[in-house]
């Protein structure tokens, strides 16, 4: 039994060896044939060369690609002594010889000993078609895609036959799409009947994109009358579609800006919206959150480099705690003495914001600190005609998650119930046994903590500097006031409305003027609805 097994194994080995030898032999023979054919490129006139190129192309062997490319560039030379063809590179006064098939160097030779194989534009076209066909057969998708794109950029009627054969065999969707477009482009420059061209226009229009537009407009210049309307309609269609995608991209940018505004404003929606405290130090809470992220990343960088992708997850609860505690201290130390005096609160918290800014500046220095993106937050992906970066994407998701969390907290938990009770009627709540001072303190700490979490997210897209918060404070207040004080949903709608409005005004008015326009619109809006989009109704309003 044992012996039989060994015997069987040896047999297999032998068969394998035989197969290998045979393959090697065919390979070698093929290489010999190829070499002969390459050598035959030299010496003849253009017609002969052209035939030879076509014959080479028929072999479908990717080894000939460098030789053909060199021929097209005028770098293919024939040695006068033995008729061998080389690719050459100038090396001083000599030529360095490179084997046309293997790409190995094969010594140097004086320039006089070599003769250039002449090339003209007709031959170049043939070569290009042949090359396109050859690389299109490459087993690697990337190479094929590149080849297809090359043809698309330089469409020619000669490439059509090759494209048809390749298309029949192509299975990869992306490559196929480009190939079809390339074919359509080639049809447009060929002298095929109008019907085929119309079909080609339809194909190009369908794929869309900026290159289609230039393709069609160049085709329009040479097209004859019967085709013109089709092309013009096609161009219009593509432009319309692009406008649509551009609008989509604008909406996306708007959502992205809106999510940033939402993050910045949502903590304020608690402190200002629910409690009625004007917290001018709110921006500094965001800044503290961002600095917490920086510190966490700094520790991770020096001590646990492997955890970098988790840095934000670690920073999140820490930022919440740090800013929450600072918020608690501010409430207990200052704000609780100022309830019912909103303007004084404004001034006192402004003072706190100055102190916090200067403290951070003294500790970390006035310059921007570098906060890195974890790998899952960098990069971008394409969605139709839009480019979407991951960090923006995650920030939108995150802002909505924070919003949902807050909503849940306020509406479904006992703490939220107490918060709402104290806000609506402090004395009644107190009579019911709710410790109103504690609820005040915790609510303020919650709002500050949320601002800190926002800081973690904003550290990913903004400069982390002591002035970080300043940039957000006015925007946040405007979002809250616009959305309607005391209403989380108002803040959500307000943030996204302002974000999208801003991004839609930007293309027409420029970034700065767009922002000014938004501010003016808000000021006018507040005249109309002094209590914001979603105003609270009832007696609480006047209190």
């Amino acid at each position, binding site marked *: 039994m044992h012996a039989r097994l060994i015997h069987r194994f040896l047999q297999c080995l032998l068969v394998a060896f035989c197969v290998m030898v045979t393959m090697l032999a065919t390979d070698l023979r093929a290489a010999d044939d190829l070499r002969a054919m390459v050598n035959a490129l030299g010496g003849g006139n253009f017609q002969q060369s052209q035939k030879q190129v076509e014959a080479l192309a028929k072999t479908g062997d990717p080894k000939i690609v460098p030789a053909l490319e060199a021929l097209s560039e005028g770098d293919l030379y024939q040695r006068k002594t033995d008729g061998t063809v080389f690719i050459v590179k100038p090396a001083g006064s000599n030529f360095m010889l490179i084997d046309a098939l293997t790409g190995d160097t094969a010594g140097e030779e004086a320039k006089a000993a070599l003769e250039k194989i002449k090339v003209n534009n007709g031959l170049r076209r043939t070569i290009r078609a042949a090359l396109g066909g050859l690389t299109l057969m490459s087993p690697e998708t990337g190479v094929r895609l590149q080849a297809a794109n090359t043809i698309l950029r330089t469409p020619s009627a000669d490439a059509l036959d090759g494209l048809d054969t390749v298309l029949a065999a192509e299975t990869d969707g992306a490559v196929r799409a480009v190939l079809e477009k390339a074919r359509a482009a080639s049809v447009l420059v060929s002298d095929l009947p109008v019907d085929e061209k119309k079909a080609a226009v339809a194909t190009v229009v369908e794929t869309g994109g900026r290159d289609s537009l230039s393709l069609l407009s160049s085709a329009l210049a040479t097209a004859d009358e019967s085709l013109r309307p089709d092309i013009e309609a096609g161009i219009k269609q593509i432009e319309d579609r692009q406008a649509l995608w551009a609008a989509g991209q604008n909406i996306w940018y708007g959502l992205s800006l809106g999510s940033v505004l939402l993050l910045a404003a949502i903590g304020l929606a608690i402190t200002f919206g629910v409690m009625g405290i*004007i917290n*001018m130090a709110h921006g500094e809470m965001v800044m503290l959150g961002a600095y917490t992220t920086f510190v966490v990343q700094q520790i991770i960088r020096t001590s646990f480099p492997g955890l970098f992708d988790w840095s934000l997850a670690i920073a999140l609860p820490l930022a919440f705690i740090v800013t929450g505690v600072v918020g608690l201290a501010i409430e207990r130390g*200052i704000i609780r*003495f*100022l309830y019912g005096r*909103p*303007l*004084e*609160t*404004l*001034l*006192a918290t*402004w*003072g*706190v*914001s*100055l*102190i916090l*800014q*200067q*403290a951070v*500046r*003294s500790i970390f220095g006035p310059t921007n600190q570098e906060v890195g993106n974890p790998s899952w937050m960098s990069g971008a992906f394409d969605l139709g005609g839009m480019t979407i970066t991951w960090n923006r994407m995650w920030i939108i998701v995150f802002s909505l998650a924070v919003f949902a969390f807050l909503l849940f907290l306020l509406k479904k938990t006992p703490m939220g119930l107490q918060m709402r009770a104290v806000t609506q009627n402090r004395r009644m709540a107190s009579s019911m046994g709710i410790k109103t001072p504690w609820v005040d303190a915790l609510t303020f700490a919650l709002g500050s903590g949320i601002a800190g979490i926002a800081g973690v997210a904003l550290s990913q897209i903004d400069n982390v500097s002591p002035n970080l918060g*300043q940039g957000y404070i*006015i925007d946040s*207040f*405007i979002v809250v*006031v616009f959305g309607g004080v005391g209403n989380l949903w108002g803040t959500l709608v307000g943030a996204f409305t302002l974000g999208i409005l801003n991004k839609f005004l930007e293309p027409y008015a420029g970034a*700065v*003027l767009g*922002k*000014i326009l938004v*501010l*003016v619109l*808000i*000021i*006018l809006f*507040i*005249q*109309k609805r*002094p209590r914001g989009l979603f105003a609270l109704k009832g007696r609480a309003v006047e209190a």
Partner: protein
Amino acid sequence: MITSFVLKALDRNIVWVTALLLVIAALVPALNLMTAPDHPLHIPTYIVSLFGKYLTYALLALALDLVWGFCGILSLGHAAFFALGGYAMGMYLMRQIGARGSYGNPLLPDFMVFLNWKELPLFWHGFDMFWFAALMAVLVPGLLAFVFGWFAFRSRVNGVYLSIITQAMTFALLLAFFRNDMGFGGNNGLTDFKDILGYSIQSNGTRSALFAASAIALALSLVITSGIVRSKYGKVLIGVRDAESRTRFLGYRVEHMKLFAFTVSAMMAGVAGALYVPQVGIINPGEFEPANSIEVVIWTAVGGRGTLIGPIVGAILVNGGKSIFTAAFPEFWLFALGGLFVLVTLFLPKGIVGTARQVIERRRDYHKARQAEAARALAAEPQAAE
């Protein structure tokens, strides 16, 4: 009518402060110009300019006190009115440079030549005349305040909402003035001034004259605001501050009252800005920073809101402190300023002047009570003897 307005305005404290201001308006320039530099009473020019600057700040704080202290409108946009007045004056000073700029263009200011502009924008016309610029320094802030206030007060935006939209207004102006296309020098603002009314802006005489002008403007504004708040209208204004709804139901047009105070206040801020710019030699969009407006509020709060004299004291004290602090320990200034905000709101809600007044009144009451008691005791004594 005017005499009665003025006479009502002048209570004892206001007379004292006005007189003091007029005296220093005469004395400081005299000491600067007529004494030798080594004379013990000589006041160096930089001090004159520095205090001239403080006086314009005091005027700004006084303007804010009119609306905040007496009408309850916490405007976070007063630095914007100040800066607008400053820009009007800056435009006049720019036009005075004429062909002496780096590019030597007789008509266009340097930055316009730099931006390749070919002709003077329409809104720069007329600013070669001083009276026009001076008028604009008052009218432009006034007009902005009028339009803004008309919209805001009519729709009853008040309290913190008003504060926030005034801040939004300042912020919008800040962004706008940063733009080069606006035609106000963009980021760099207006600077390199040469002379004012034909006198070199650097000379001691001009500096002293500007100081005197600032002091006189402040004294005048003090009398005017004092007159306003002591008139019948002023009483209603205080009514608006303390019980807006009640005043409205008594039949007063609250929004008109507020609008008048707001507009007058903005005009005063504009005057302050116009006097400020030639003394510091530059105006740029940084003056529109929302933080500046809030700082004005703290000057007023430190000195004493609703006291008229307090804001003047507060502005000079805080800015004097700022000058000393930023020179000696620059990194601690924000701590000090922040701490000031917190401490004043917590422990000194009436400000220095307000608290001082309270103390004096209490002492007077105490004395009166003591005297009354002594008199009673005296009256009772003979009976006891019998």
